[in-house]
């Protein structure tokens, strides 16, 4: 029997980035917030302190900062005709655990998406005709515009001290920035990180081909920075331990450094760690979320936490599972295309072209997670897709984030996998190679979706979330096209040796990391028939239930997802303050 606790105003499920941003806005207006997080506080732990912070095996290979798959994993099948099996050790993407969530172990790559992304269907239909989008490609507008989110993007960038070079300020294209950038109200709060040697080589080659290279926007601070809340970042050490790691120098913008320490000082904010939410309590008649049921992982006591407002702010997989389990909203059915929960589940497609330079010192260990140089000519709808047979694209970049030696050695194609020749190739090329990578989009497909697994359960006895997911023809064609463009840049760079183009082929593979950017499952939209939450992230059925995070994205672009979800979370915080004052359907 769960112990019933006193009612709280706002309860947020999941203590990651979006929860902290919602809480920042709410507590500033005197609304009390309780955040429930399954993990602990990593500050001061081996993960955050020299020397163990630099342990590639522990954090980078065994992934000890991410979700424990022994406790909870996801099942997978490539088609609904197949039987699903549990992914017993997930490598493809890495949900976080602990205060700050996956926001602690990210690389810091900070994008705003294209101005047209929230209205992608309209954009493609306008440009290519009403019938251009294939029926099975379930792209839909998000019900929000970039212009509505711009002030929140701006706020997030100030809070996280994002470094970069503006490409478009109020519609005026800026030299040195991304000419395809959505118009921003002002320059980034911090200048770009130092360019790597790979960036120098990449820029010259890209310019030779007429492209416009620019520095990736980064949450890795180029200098000491104090944000508008008085929270501080130290300068980046360029140590190459960002993604999968917690920054020991407090130089990476993360919720653990910039948000939770500040929130924990605020009146009305409470964070309960080691609290695993089992279910959302739902009054079906009243159509209200009445609270949540959670397990204290340190005592095995179960609690019922009543709330006026429940915000689901977990990793996309967990947010979707909670709604399916609580049976709030109609589950998506791929046979009819009806139903909403689990719909438009997307991932991303990476591809890599290694290039080798006998006379250049790339020194891959001299890097941060975002000190990268990029071109955006072949991303999204930045280029004409007429006659190409696919939609979407990706950014192309000099991909050097680290030189961690277990995972980041490049050897020329044809090198044996072991023996003296293998060792010699490692010795010859480790410091002299980098990849021309493509960070590619993944548009939704009618047959890619999430539901509850009929057979497999987690350590708490609850059904695993099941992915029915595979790459589709659109994805393969996109990867083929953009990877070829990346290969052309590598060739133009005058490398000693360039690997052949290696676009993404084959079935989705749970054994291979590509990105942690899964999206969809509880998507937002203007039509309750095709979305779980409204453009204000309010559940269409339960007025006092809100969902925030990448699970509300109706498609996945070729950009990293943090920017828009941070903007949406800040806006939700403001919306909720108004809702608390006067509960209603937000419009």
């Amino acid at each position: 029997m769960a112990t019933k606790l006193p009612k709280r105003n706002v309860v947020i499920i999941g203590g990651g980035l979006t929860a902290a941003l919602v809480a920042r806005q709410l507590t500033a207006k005197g609304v009390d917030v309780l955040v429930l997080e399954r993990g602990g506080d990593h500050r001061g732990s081996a993960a955050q302190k020299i020397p163990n912070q630099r342990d590639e095996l522990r954090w980078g290979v065994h992934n000890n900062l991410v979700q424990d798959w022994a406790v909870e994993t996801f099942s997978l099948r490539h088609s609904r005709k197949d039987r699903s099996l549990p992914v017993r050790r997930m490598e493809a993407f890495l949900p976080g655990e602990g205060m700050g969530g996956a926001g602690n172990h990210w690389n810091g790559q900070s994008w705003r998406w294209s101005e047209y992304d929230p209205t992608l269907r309209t954009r493609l239909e306008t440009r290519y005709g009403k019938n251009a989008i294939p029926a099975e490609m379930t792209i839909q507008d998000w019900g929000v515009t970039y212009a509505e989110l711009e002030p929140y993007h701006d706020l997030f960038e100030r809070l996280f001290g994002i470094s970069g070079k503006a490409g478009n300020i109020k519609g005026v294209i800026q030299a040195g920035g991304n000419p395809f950038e959505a118009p921003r109200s002002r320059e980034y709060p911090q200048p770009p990180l130092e360019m790597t040697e790979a960036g120098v080589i990449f820029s010259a080659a890209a310019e030779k081909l007429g492209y416009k290279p620019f520095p990736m926007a980064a949450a890795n601070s180029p200098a000491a920075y104090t944000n508008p809340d008085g929270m501080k970042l130290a300068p980046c050490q360029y140590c190459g331990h960002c993604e999968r790691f917690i920054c020991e120098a407090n130089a990476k913008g993360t919720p653990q450094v910039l948000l939770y320490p500040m929130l924990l000082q605020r009146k009305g904010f409470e964070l309960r760690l080691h609290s695993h939410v089992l279910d959302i309590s739902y009054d079906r008649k009243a159509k209200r979320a009445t609270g949540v049921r959670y397990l204290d992982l340190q005592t095995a006591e179960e609690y019922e936490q009543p709330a006026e407002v429940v915000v689901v702010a977990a990793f996309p997989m967990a947010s979707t599972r909670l709604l399916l389990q609580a049976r709030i909203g109609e589950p998506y059915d791929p046979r009819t295309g009806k139903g909403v929960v689990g719909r438009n589940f997307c991932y991303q497609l990476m591809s890599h072209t290694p290039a080798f330079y006998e006379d250049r010192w790339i020194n891959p260990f001299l890097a941060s997670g975002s000190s990268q140089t990029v071109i955006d000519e072949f991303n999204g709808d930045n280029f004409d897709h007429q006659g190409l047979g696919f939609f979407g694209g990706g950014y192309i970049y000099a991909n050097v984030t680290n030189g961690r030696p277990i995972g980041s050695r490049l050897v020329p194609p044809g090198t044996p996998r072991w023996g003296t020749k293998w060792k010699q190739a490692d010795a010859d090329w480790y410091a002299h190679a980098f990849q021309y990578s493509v960070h590619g989009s993944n548009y939704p497909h009618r047959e890619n979706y999430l539901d509850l697994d009929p057979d497999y359960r987690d350590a708490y006895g609850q059904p695993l979330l099941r992915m029915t997911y595979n790459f589709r023809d659109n994805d393969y064609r996109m990867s083929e096209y953009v990877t070829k463009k990346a290969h052309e840049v590598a060739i133009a760079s005058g490398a000693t040796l360039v690997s052949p183009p290696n676009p993404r082929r084959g079935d989705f593979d749970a054994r291979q990391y590509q990105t942690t950017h899964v999206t969809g499952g509880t998507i937002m939209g203007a039509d309750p028939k095709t979305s779980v939450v409204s453009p204000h992230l309010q559940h269409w059925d339960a007025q006092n239930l809100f969902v925030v995070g990448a699970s509300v994205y109706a498609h996945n672009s070729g950009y990293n997802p943090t920017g828009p979800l941070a903007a949406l979370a800040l806006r939700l915080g403001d919306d909720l303050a108004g809702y608390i004052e006067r509960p209603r359907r937000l419009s």
Partner: protein
Amino acid sequence: MATTTLSRRIFLKQVAASSGALAVGAGTVVSPAAAADAAPASPAPAPEVAAGYESLSPAEAAFVEALVNVMCPADNLTPNGVDCGLADYIDRQLAGAFGRGDRLYRQGPWRSGKPQLGYQLPLTPEQFFKTGVATAQAACTARLNKHFEDLSPEDANAFLLEVAAGKVDDARVPLAQWFNELVYPLFTQACFADPMYGGNRGKVFWKLIGYPGLPAFHTKNMVEFRGKPFPGALDPKSIQDFS
């Protein structure tokens, strides 16, 4: 905050000390590979874990020692695999949390499936490793009439290539998966993980490729050594050096 500042100060001091020592040789940095060509690899340094195997039986140890010596032969780049600590590393991993299936979802029902769905056997990694060793040994004996550890280096290498390519069939044990998804990752980890785990003895592989290990670099180094040999790569620092 006091502890953060303190540990950072110690860290910076150590980095400064190591950079200072290296600056002397900075003008004459050569590629580690070129250096390796010039002279045989220095004798193996002392092991960083205690002697003796925790998990491997004598027969399994003989197989694993032969395997790491084939995959990492003694040459002018490194000592042999055993002397680099690679068998020690594999043994410790199998005996520890990884081998027991830490962070691995181990609930049934157990069913086989497409490779892209990942590992599906009810065995812990330690059990799978040992099952594979026994199966590979049996296949080797059946094919070549010799134990794996008694093969010539050339024959042993050829046998491993066949296993990796899926050409050594066994009706029950997926040997190619065993080699490619368990043995091979353990081998590369043994070479390149921090020496405190038993492999990469004396940071031999870090020195070979020029990975500087733990030190932070700071913007100054980032700019000064952009496109140039980095002196710290000649004298890598491990976790033990900062403990």
